[in-house]
């Protein structure tokens, strides 16, 4: 019979790692399962300036590396496995990974969210061919090229500014006539000479023969379509989309209660509708999706999981 952990945390982003850290400190036997890369979305972020105490120039990867160190120091185990199914019906929860099956008295779901696709024709075919969702991965391909950034939130504007370090010109394409990003970020953006703005616009279609060559934009107010063609010498240009997120909750459908968008519902103390199952971080419906709220969720979930186990077992 396989080992029964006190706690299994699914997902090793800031929420999951924070939960594991708290659980480890409380001497709970804790297993963290991560399907691909430790750190979640924050590791593709070049700068984390708004996490209290994170020093100037702190990067996503450096912050995560320190969290992982802390987690392992406190005794939690981190394993690479992709969770494909769960059984939450009994007191002992079963988590089925691709490699192994795991058992625990409590589970924290911290699987996070992934960038939303734009949903226009040509997007899928041209991903990695000019279309990107990861500035730190792909920015340097576009050195001295033109780049478009789709979106108007914090991430879009911050990543657009990062891209101006590489591209000769970056145009932010936003569906409204003003940005949604924090005022301090906007101020910096409006001062950046390499940044241009295309308001009230969305991407209608992307075209190209194996590489992004043409983008068609629609002005939502006038309905007018404009085409942008790659500079002849460059042969291509970049288009980075930061248009929100979709929750990573498919595996848990039918096992815990979710809202209409697939976010896992919890109370203020991160409890789902299933006893002993908690959710933390971007997987929950929330107003602010940042490292600081994710780590807070993780801490609360782990503390409440411990309390639950004390009463139950």
């Amino acid at each position, binding site marked *: 019979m396989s080992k029964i952990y006190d706690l299994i945390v699914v997902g090793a982003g800031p929420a999951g790692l924070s939960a594991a850290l708290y659980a480890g400190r409380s001497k709970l036997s804790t297993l963290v399962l991560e399907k691909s890369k430790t750190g979640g979305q924050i590791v593709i972020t070049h700068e984390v300036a708004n996490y209290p105490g994170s020093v100037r120039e702190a990067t996503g990867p450096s912050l995560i590396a320190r969290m992982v160190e802390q987690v392992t120091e406190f005794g939690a185990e981190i394993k690479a496995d992709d969770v494909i199914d769960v059984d939450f019906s009994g007191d002992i929860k079963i988590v089925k990974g691709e490699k192994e099956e795991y058992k625990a008295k409590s589970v924290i779901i911290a699987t996070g969210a992934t960038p939303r696709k734009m949903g226009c024709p040509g997007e899928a075919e041209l*991903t990695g*061919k*000019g279309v990107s969702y990861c500035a730190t*991965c*792909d920015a340097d391909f576009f050195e001295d090229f033109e780049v478009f950034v789709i979106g108007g939130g914090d991430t879009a504007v911050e990543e657009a500014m990062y891209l101006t370090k590489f591209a000769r010109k970056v145009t932010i394409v936003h569906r409204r006539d003003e940005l949604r990003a924090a005022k301090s970020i906007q101020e910096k953006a409006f001062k950046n000479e390499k940044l241009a703005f295309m308001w009230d616009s969305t991407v209608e279609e992307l075209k190209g023969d*194996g*590489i992004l060559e043409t983008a068609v934009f629609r002005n939502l107010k006038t309905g007018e379509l404009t085409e942008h063609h790659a500079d002849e010498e460059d042969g*291509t240009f970049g288009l980075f989309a930061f248009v929100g997120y979709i929750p990573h909750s498919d595996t848990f459908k039918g096992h815990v209660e979710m809202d209409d968008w697939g976010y896992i519902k919890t109370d203020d103390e991160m409890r789902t509708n299933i006893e002993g199952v908690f959710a933390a971080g971007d997987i929950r419906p929330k107003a602010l999706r940042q490292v600081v709220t994710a780590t807070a969720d993780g801490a609360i979930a782990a503390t409440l999981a411990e309390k639950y186990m004390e009463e139950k077992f």
Partner: protein
Amino acid sequence: MLIVDKGTFEEEVLNAEGYVLVDYYSDGCVPCQALLPELEVIAEKNADKAKFVKLNTSKARRMAIKQKVLGLPTITLYKNGAKVAELTKDDATAKNIETMLAENIK
């Protein structure tokens, strides 16, 4: 895995006979770093089937773009110097790479 650069890419990949798998990566690409250990295991297992090489695109940008690679990670399989299959971004997983090798190298 053999490291290639813009000086050796042509010889080791485009002019090479048989199958060559190229790992396009860069220093700043975290998903690439996460994939590498798994890819190295695959490379060892399949050493008799294909040559496994990696190219740091930060130092060979134009060469990568010429190969129509503008996103990382990208894993491309070449046969006698011609592309036969490619996996990029979310699709570039260990499982998909193994499937790609199995489907293309009989």
